[in-house]
């Protein structure tokens, strides 16, 4: 009986020290939100959390004001072949349109969005439910203990004596393994994530622990070259690796898009677009220039392995139309400090009904100081006003939540004195509202330019 006491005390002691629980409930992955400028439509494509696998995939397509009605083909491709497809009928009324597709296994997948004229592909990873080695050891230990317990009882009943102490010792050993593994599990680092750290393959998605130890520590990749050209009605972005010259086909979704493209016309009109991927390193967004001249182009991207980069270039466009992006006149409250010190611009939208756009309540685009051509402005910035955290939701609220505002503050330290063009953007009623403004930033030391 003393032996029993000792064993039980050891087990009790083993997990008496409170465990920092590893409650990583989001192991199955969350929603994937990707903004897509597909032709005349500015869409938000939301791939809802996929579980179980194989199983259905719910895709929400959010349209915005001015988006024409029509059919949108959705297809799921794996390994170059189409596995499932559906058609979503987009109405002229902006909002959510849902389609259901199907995946037949974990690994790298592509969602193809086809409006009949342009075909966009969204690469994403369907995660597998993965058991970590300690988790397996804990389960295995408990199961072995259970089996051995039965064996012990059986042996003890049939024959008794010393023979039954062999499986009994096994029970204790198995339990020790299980409890130790359960305790250690929380301190085992997760393996590098296929998709965000490594190029995904079916193998490493299914078993990310297989080669976890053989991988490098720093996954970041070289910077990217951006070449912008006009192709038909589209602005084409060619992205190539800064070290190898190969097409860059490993963009991650960050702030709900593969690339955040800002284009400013010579007269100071802003387009904030989200080019669609049409091939490796080939991203396109429809842009019909209302005026000829040199346009400033800036793309924010993030490559696999982490780190964001801002790619800036210019492109000379010929006038192809007359339509300029719509603007509004939302009152701005300005507290402009000298260059290098934080300035705050607060947009007063008047009502608490703003929707998050690209996961943020508001965006402020800053270009300047402008002395000659806008395209030559040295500073380009993209400032965010965050959505307040909603603790019970692991995923950020999508555009169906119209509950933010009314005031949207942005704080930014203008690096240089001079005249800046700024645009405040926020979404209301499924329309992105853009308010342009000009800000004069004084030089430090009270000297005003």
């Amino acid at each position, binding site marked *: 009986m003393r032996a029993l006491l000792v064993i039980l005390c050891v087990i009790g002691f083993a997990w008496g020290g409170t465990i920092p629980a590893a409650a990583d409930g989001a192991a199955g992955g969350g929603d994937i939100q990707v903004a897509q400028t597909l032709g005349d439509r500015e869409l938000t494509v939301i791939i809802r959390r996929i579980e179980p696998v194989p199983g259905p995939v719910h895709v929400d397509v959010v349209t915005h004001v001015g988006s024409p009605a029509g059919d949108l083909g959705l297809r799921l491709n794996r390994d*170059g072949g189409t596995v499932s497809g559906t058609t979503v009928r987009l109405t002229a009324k902006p909002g959510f349109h849902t389609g259901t597709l199907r995946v037949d296994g974990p690994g790298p997948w592509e969602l193809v969005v086809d409006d009949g004229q342009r075909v966009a592909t969204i690469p994403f990873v369907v995660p597998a439910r993965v058991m970590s080695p300690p988790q397996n*050891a804990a389960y295995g230990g408990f199961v072995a203990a259970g089996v051995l317990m039965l064996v012990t009882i059986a042996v003890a009943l049939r024959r008794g004596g010393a023979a039954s102490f062999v*499986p009994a010792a096994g029970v204790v050993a198995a339990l020790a393994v299980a409890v130790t593994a359960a305790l250690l599990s929380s301190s085992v680092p997760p393996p590098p994530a296929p998709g965000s750290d490594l190029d995904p393959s079916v*193998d490493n998605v299914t078993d990310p622990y297989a080669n976890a130890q053989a991988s490098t520590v720093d996954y970041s990749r*070289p910077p990217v070259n951006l070449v912008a050209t006009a192709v038909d009605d589209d602005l084409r972005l060619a992205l190539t690796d800064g070290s*190898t010259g*190969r097409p860059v086909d490993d963009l991650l979704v960050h702030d709900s898009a593969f690339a955040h493209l800002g284009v400013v016309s010579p007269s100071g009109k802003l387009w904030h677009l989200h080019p669609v991927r049409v091939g490796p390193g080939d991203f396109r967004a429809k842009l019909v220039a209302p005026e000829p001249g040199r346009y400033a182009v800036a793309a924010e991207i993030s490559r696999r392995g982490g780190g964001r980069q801002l790619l800036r270039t210019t492109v000379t466009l010929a006038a192809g139309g007359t339509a300029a992006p719509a603007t509004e006149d939302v009152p701005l409250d300005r507290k402009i400090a000298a260059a290098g010190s934080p300035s705050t611009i607060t947009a007063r939208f008047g009502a608490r009904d703003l929707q998050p756009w690209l996961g943020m309540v508001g965006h402020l685009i800053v270009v300047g100081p402008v002395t000659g051509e806008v395209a030559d402005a040295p500073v380009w910035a993209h400032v965010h006003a965050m959505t307040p955290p909603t603790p019970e939701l692991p995923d950020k609220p999508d555009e169906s939540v119209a509950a933010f505002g009314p005031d949207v503050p942005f704080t930014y330290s203008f690096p240089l004195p001079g005249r800046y063009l700024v645009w405040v953007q926020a979404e209301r009623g499924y329309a992105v509202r853009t308010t342009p403004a000009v800000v004069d930033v004084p030089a430090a030391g009270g000297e005003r330019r």
Partner: protein
Amino acid sequence: MNRRAIVAGAALAVVVALVALVFRGTADSGTTSASASGSRYTVRLSVDDPRTGPNSLGFEVTDKAGTPVAPDEVTVEPVMPVMGHALAPVTANPEGQGRFRAPTADLPMAGPWQITVSLRDASGVDQVVLPLLVKG
């Protein structure tokens, strides 16, 4: 009595073996393989025990329907993306039945590689990119 002990020990061994089988973590199978499709071809790459240094890369080329086909030329361009290091392309030797082999492709570093395979035929070049993890 002794027999009993043996039986119990055997039972224990069987249980341990079963559990080990069920929960077998990540035994190395030795051969690494990956497959990907371009617009016309599907390529399956298999490498026995990829290590730093020269490796023998085998490719099985099929059309989209899965029938083995042989394009005119298959070239292999390894890139170590994290390092920003690209290697000179090597041409793979045809072995018949849609099989090609680059017998001494140099992969000079451990870590994740991208193997770009260019398949040239009369109608142009099709490219696929395959991930390959090289051990030290």
